[in-house]
């Protein structure tokens, strides 16, 4: 975990810590099991690669969304709270990919403590797979 962000020192452009994620089968399985999501493209490799012609098992879209939410929520930590969050799944991610979450401060409202963050998941080719935005409030929650 990183140091608590200090509102008085925050500026647009400031970067959030980068976190790396290995897209792998056990975590993907447990995630879909926790949801009760039986979509074969997340666990049935012959079906996924032959019938659906994907290169490998497909990572679940909302799991990537969760990783982005963590980037914002872990950054703000106990200093405030996550108020809103949005993301879109633009490009599929696959088991075997090396992904990373990145983020930076877009704007800071010192009066309200509201900080807007730009977020993204990137793959090993540096392609943005999952862009997102979060609004966090620092200070009085």
């Amino acid at each position: 975990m990183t140091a608590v962000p200090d509102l008085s020192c925050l500026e647009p452009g400031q970067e959030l810590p980068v976190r790396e994620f290995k897209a792998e089968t056990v975590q993907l399985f447990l995630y879909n099991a926790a949801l009760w999501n039986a979509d074969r493209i997340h666990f049935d490799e012959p079906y996924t690669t032959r019938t659906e012609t994907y290169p490998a098992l497909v990572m679940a879209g909302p799991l990537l969304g969760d990783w982005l939410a963590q980037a914002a929520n872990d950054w703000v930590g106990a200093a405030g709270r996550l108020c809103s969050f949005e993301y879109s799944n633009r490009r599929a991610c696959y088991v075997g990919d090396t992904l990373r979450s990145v983020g930076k401060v877009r704007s800071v409202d010192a009066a309200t403590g509201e900080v807007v963050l730009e977020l993204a998941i990137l793959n090993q080719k540096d392609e943005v797979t999952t862009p997102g935005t979060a609004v966090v409030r620092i200070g009085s929650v």
Partner: protein
Amino acid sequence: MTLLGAELLALIGTSAAPQTQLVTRRDIRKYSIATGQRQQRYLDGDEAPPMFHVALFWPVLPLSELAANGVAIDPLFPDVPGKRPMAGGLKIDFRLPLRPGDELTATRTLTNIYEKQGSSGSLVFVEVTMRVHNPQGELVLTEKTTRIMK
């Protein structure tokens, strides 16, 4: 030319039956481990991480109601002739934390269907909004899912 006939647009405003679910520590812990949470309050199940509601309200259907590819068909998402889902996203407004013992009710409504011209033909956007309340009637969160069909 528009794909969206009056019959399709008339579905806007349709809601699914509300569903009520109990938040348990065990389910929070499973979700937190599966998503690689790093905050102890989530790993211990004292509080749910931000996206836990996705799991809480995922439809629990019998095997006989799943499609051959394992997918749970969402009756709120309409069939759009000639279009296949290609991407999507979520927007969530968080109001109150979720904790073990909370009994929450979600109401899902088809809130919009619209068409845009993309670089490779028309795209259809379908929006479903889920509002989650606690037994006191307080809004806990809202989630807007947008599915893009090509």
